[in-house]
């Protein structure tokens, strides 16, 4: 019995080493089990035609790839499912169309739980999350956390006060994107603070929106703000209303509101596109004090020139923590600051290493 096994092993080994073509099919790592990597080296033979085929359950072969290089690799992601056996055949023919050799490779595609290529992303996410949790804990335990002054946010009291004195409304525009954008969420958080101030000062607030989900959320936010301010009776459900989903239809409507209602203070907080200048310019022409905030780099220039105060990028996200001073939000902002400090340190070290010809850090951090 042992002899037979040994003979079989030797026979298989001799077959393996006698092959002139190297061909292997392996599971593509770090994926959801829907791709197979194929590698070949047929540089030892002289072939005019080569191809790779895949056999299905019934043994029927279908062409995967025509091969024009003696050595190479190919990723097969066509109808591959995890945990199913696939048989790949590499065939080579000579100039007389005679089959030189045919090599088979059997493989199972597997889904991986972890993508090891994204380990740097995991480490950074864990560091920032741990920092956020630590600072939230610190803030909750009474430690005072410092945040520098943000000019655009200091103006909220001034703007709401001005609107109250003039007896004119406050206009708040939470951008033109839906709730699946972080800027809209940040804008709605600021809306809560502005509505709270408006409730305290007994000023009217107008919130035209262009998305149904934003309408529901903005209504909740404003209602909550009036409740917190102890003025639920002053809340007007019609102060938050829907205009249209259409970008320029919405702008036309808001421009009309600005010219007719003449709000004393305009807040443009959220995601904006081409309508940013139209809105800010109309607000400027109406004489309103304007505070804008967006993380859209292409629209920031228009807000900078046409508004009195502008929250640039990250300042929009820091605004709610700055205004509320709530431990959860303060801790979150401080944790993000730690992330920025880490960014600067890693960048400085990385540049020094790159100048020295060491690429380890850059390679480790690169995520595809």
């Amino acid at each position, binding site marked *: 019995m042992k002899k037979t096994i040994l003979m079989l092993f030797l026979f298989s080994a001799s077959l393996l080493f006698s092959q002139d073509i190297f061909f292997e099919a392996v599971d593509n790592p770090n994926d959801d089990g829907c791709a197979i990597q194929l590698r070949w080296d047929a540089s030892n033979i002289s072939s005019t035609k080569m191809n790779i085929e895949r056999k299905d359950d019934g043994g029927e072969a279908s062409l995967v790839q025509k091969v024009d290089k003696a050595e190479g690799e190919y990723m097969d992601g066509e109808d591959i499912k995890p945990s199913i056996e696939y048989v790949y055949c590499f065939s080579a023919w000579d100039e007389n169309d005679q089959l030189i050799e045919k090599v088979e490779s059997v493989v199972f595609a597997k889904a991986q739980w972890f993508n090891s290529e994204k380990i740097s*992303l995991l480490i*950074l*996410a864990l560091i*920032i999350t741990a920092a956020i949790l630590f600072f939230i804990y610190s803030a909750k335990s009474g430690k005072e*956390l*410092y*945040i*520098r002054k943000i000019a655009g946010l200091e103006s909220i009291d001034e703007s709401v006060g001005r609107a109250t004195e003039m007896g004119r409304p406050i206009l708040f525009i939470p951008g033109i994107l839906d*709730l*699946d*954008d*972080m800027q809209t*969420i940040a804008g709605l958080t600021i809306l809560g603070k502005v509505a709270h101030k408006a409730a305290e000062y007994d000023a009217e607030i107008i919130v035209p929106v262009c998305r149904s*989900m934003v309408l*529901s*959320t903005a209504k*909740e936010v404003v209602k909550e703000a009036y409740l917190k301010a102890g003025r639920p009776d002053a809340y007007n459900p019609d102060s938050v209303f*829907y*205009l*249209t*989903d*259409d970008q*320029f*239809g*919405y702008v*036309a*409507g808001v*421009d*009309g509101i600005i*010219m*007719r209602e003449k709000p004393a203070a305009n807040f443009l907080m959220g995601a904006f596109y081409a309508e940013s*200048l139209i809105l800010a310019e109309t607000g400027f022409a109406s004489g309103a004090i304007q505070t804008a905030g967006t993380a859209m*780099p*292409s629209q*920031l*220039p*228009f807000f*900078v*020139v046409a508004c009195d105060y502008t929250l640039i990028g990250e300042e929009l996200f*820091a605004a709610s923590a*700055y205004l509320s001073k709530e431990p959860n939000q303060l801790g979150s*902002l*401080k944790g993000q*600051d730690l992330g*920025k*400090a880490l*960014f*600067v340190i*890693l*960048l400085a070290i*990385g*540049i020094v290493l*790159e*100048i020295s*010809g060491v690429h380890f*850090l*850059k390679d480790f*951090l*690169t*995520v595809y």
Partner: protein
Amino acid sequence: MEHFFSVLGIWLGVLFTFAIFSFLYKDNPVYKVAEQIFVGLSAGYWFVYTIYFILIPNLFDPLINDFAGNWIKLIPAVLGIMMLMRLMPKTGWVSRFPIALVIGTTSGVFFLRYLKSDVINQLTATMMNPFTGGDWVVIIGQIMLIVGTLTGVIYFYFSKKHEGAFGATAKVGIYFLMISFGAAFGYTAMARISLLIGRLQFLLGDWLGIISP
């Protein structure tokens, strides 16, 4: 008949173009009419679009044709119905659940997405030897990229007062931002001029026929 509607379309386009342009002078009844028609039409258009291009192909058709394979779509359908509960004051609170789900999911998904695209990718793209590239213009560009990135991030650091050396570095960061805003402003202003040219081409070409469209 087709020609009639084509001409009618051009004339309506011209009327609405002038009506909207009249806002440049001041708010007036003609603008108000155009604005209300625009807002009303677009709201109606998006309502119909949502039914025919979102609800029917993504929800109703899959559930009717292959319920067993698409039952999971019932979850967003139920969440949508929960949103409609707002229409009745007594059940309005139910809509808070889908809102909370959307906000929570958005925050979670974007945390990792931005960490990759705005942090790690920016970090590795800036992590370079600035003295390679041969051409001195390229070298200066690379040094500016590094200085701009570092000082820009320092400007957005909120935990320290902008004073002393830290304040000076942050000031350099805001200068970089303002210069980039100026360049972006000029670029976009040019793009807006092309929009105006498009409107003038419509008026002078399609309508008056003075220029070839």
